[in-house]
């Protein structure tokens, strides 16, 4: 197996005249917990979609654990797990059924799928709600269910798009611990996020994307360059705050 879990070369994608991803090169070593950060509309979701075989790129190459995603999609899909930005779950299945279904889709034997589903529900603190419809789950419960679906076949590379957005601190902690444990066993995680503190805290590799291009990549220490990641990010992407002179009335007690 290659030491590189994720290798991306010259990845491009345009929608009409808008170039969403403008030639991305990225390398993530196996066993890394890597973060992909960038402002809204930077191209994070488009990049992750192309890396996971869900969106056909205009050009470029994505290799996961030595398997070319677009030359041999079935082989690449078999080794990855994906948690999309919005929980895409079957609303009319219960949490237990949802995880079991995901396991069976991944060719796990029925008994194994059921057993793993029960274990994941337990670790994700969803056992009490396992028989409720996913449609009645909160945002955090959906994210955790989605993570369970992505992990049930034990992928070697896990992609997560904004995994902690809208998730309460307790659920976030559960997810964080699970990801750390997952990479501790040699598997690789790449996730996108807006939350710099989180990326700085748990990632050993960070890439900053802006306007469809990687503007910085390396270990977290290298990208930070002695500053906080938040400051390094703002320095690289540029401040976007507007003048606030027009809000002179704001903050006074009268209306």
């Amino acid at each position, binding site marked *: 197996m290659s030491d590189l879990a994720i290798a991306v070369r010259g990845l491009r994608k345009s929608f009409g005249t808008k170039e969403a991803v403008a030639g991305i090169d990225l390398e993530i070593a196996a066993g890394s917990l890597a973060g992909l950060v960038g402002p809204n509309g930077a191209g994070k979701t488009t990049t992750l979609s192309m890396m996971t075989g869900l969106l056909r790129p205009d050009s470029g190459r994505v290799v996961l654990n030595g398997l070319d995603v677009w030359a041999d999609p079935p082989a690449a899909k078999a080794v990855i797990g994906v948690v999309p930005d919005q929980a*895409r779950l079957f609303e009319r299945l219960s949490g237990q059924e949802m995880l079991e279904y995901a396991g069976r889709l991944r060719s796990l034997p029925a008994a194994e799928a059921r057993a793993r589903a029960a274990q994941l529900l337990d670790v994700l603190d969803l056992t009490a709600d396992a028989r409720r419809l996913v449609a009645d789950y909160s945002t955090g419960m959906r994210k955790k269910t989605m993570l369970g679906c992505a992990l049930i076949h034990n992928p070697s590379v896990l992609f997560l798009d904004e995994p902690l957005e809208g998730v309460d601190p307790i659920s976030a902690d559960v997810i964080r611990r699970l990801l750390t444990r997952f990479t501790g066993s040699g598997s690789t995680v790449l996730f996108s996020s807006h939350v710099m503190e989180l990326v700085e805290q748990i990632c050993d590799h960070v890439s900053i994307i802006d306007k469809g291009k990687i503007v910085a990549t390396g270990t977290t220490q290298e990208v930070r360059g002695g500053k906080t990641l938040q400051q390094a990010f703002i320095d690289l992407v540029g401040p976007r705050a507007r003048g606030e002179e027009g809000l002179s009335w704001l903050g006074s007690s009268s209306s």
Partner: protein
Amino acid sequence: MARLLVQLKLRLVLNALRSSAAAETSFILSTFFAFVVAVGGFYVLSLFRGLSASVDLTTVIFTMFALGWLVLPIFAFGLDGTLDPATVALYPLRTRSLAAGLLAASAAGAWPAANLIGLLGVTVGLASGALGLVVAIVAVVLQVLFCITLARLVTTSMARLLRSRRGKDLAAFLFIPIFALIELLGQVIPNAAAGGGITAASFAGVDAWMRWLPPGLAAHAIQDASDGHPGTALARLALLAAVIVALAWLWVRSLGRALVTADTSSGSSQLRGTALPLARYGLRGTVAARFWIYQRREPISLVYWVMTAVFMVVVSASTILGPHQHPAVVIASAVVGAGLVGYFRGNSVGLTGPPFIIEALALTSRRSLRAYFAGQDIAIGVIAAPLLTAISFGLAAAVRNLNQAVPATAVALAGLGAALGLANILTVTFAYPMVTRAGSPMRQAAQGYGSHTFGGVLATLAGVAVAVTPVILAAAFTGTAPAAIRAPALIVCSAAYGLALAWAGVQIAARQAQDRLPELCQTAIQSTV
């Protein structure tokens, strides 16, 4: 406050109108239908003049208008921002002034005006004399006020439910009786009336209990005033007014509660089963299990099955109730039934929506794709085959020609196979995003894909009709054979033929899908569920 909320409602309507070409078309159509209801309602009510059952018919129509006000706001809950108290709960408003404003907002718009104008047809159809005319106008105003207050009470007291998944399910389920009623009024009753089975006199006495409901009180007050019984008329109007005041009081109380409990969850119950049924039968069984669960738990799936059954009955309605007998129409019903089963499944990627991504990530080979499409067919087939068979036999009995049951069933089974095959092929080659819009429990083609829906219906119905031609010919040429041999032979051969067509559909769809999965994923992501 009243002025502000009326302005808010008009602004919401205007903004919806400007949002897209589809919304503009929808607004124009809605306004046109409101005009039709105003003119049509006025005309129909005026036709009752001199009929022996005029007050009975007027009561029925008043009650139907009230039912419309009761049910339609449940559909419009997400569409009309003024219906949901949660939208105003953040502002420091007094309940009474808010209630007056919301009532005024309800009365604004094309449909309340159409309601008022349409019901004024009673001034011609039922009222006579000056007193009758005055009472008719007062009764119509009170009837409209009753409808508005009733609608507000229902939506406000059900706001928590309507905001939840269960409320959306309820709206979908309510679509079933409304759809059946529309088909009854638009197809079945006109056919029966054309055959002489129903006349105006048939409605005499239908308001035996309806007359004591508020709409009945309004209609009978007009009758009493016109017949020279002003005391009874005024007593009925007073009773109606008292009902409106009571409803308004309940509504204001409900509104007060809703303003401080706007965002609580409706909760949910635990399901009984724990294991995914059929999961031990490989990918095919697993996919079949998922689709089977959806047929039971998803209201829209149930609506599709009911629509299929209703359309099959409607196709045969002219022969069941009309003067002319065309027993072979049962076969046409079978073709339509099979075609609709295929059409309703013909864009399963768009219908599945974003969760299709989970499936797409696991569909890594042509074999797995074959299992995926076959699993869907199994889940749909085990429901459709007995349903179409039962309806075919039922319709043959209703047209009093049981000989048609066997060929109709044979056509239904062969047609079902063709429909499932076509549905799988169309799912892959003709996939389009489906969206759920506020105000409608049904999923519709996303903007710009309307022609796909029409094309899908046309392709499926035409494809099924062509595919079942050999079965129809076989049934025709074996008409004189002994029934004991002909019936099982025809049904078994047709079922086998249908299975072969469905199998061919699975093969073709799997081959096509292998190269199109990323595109199908994008269609799924663009959809909403």
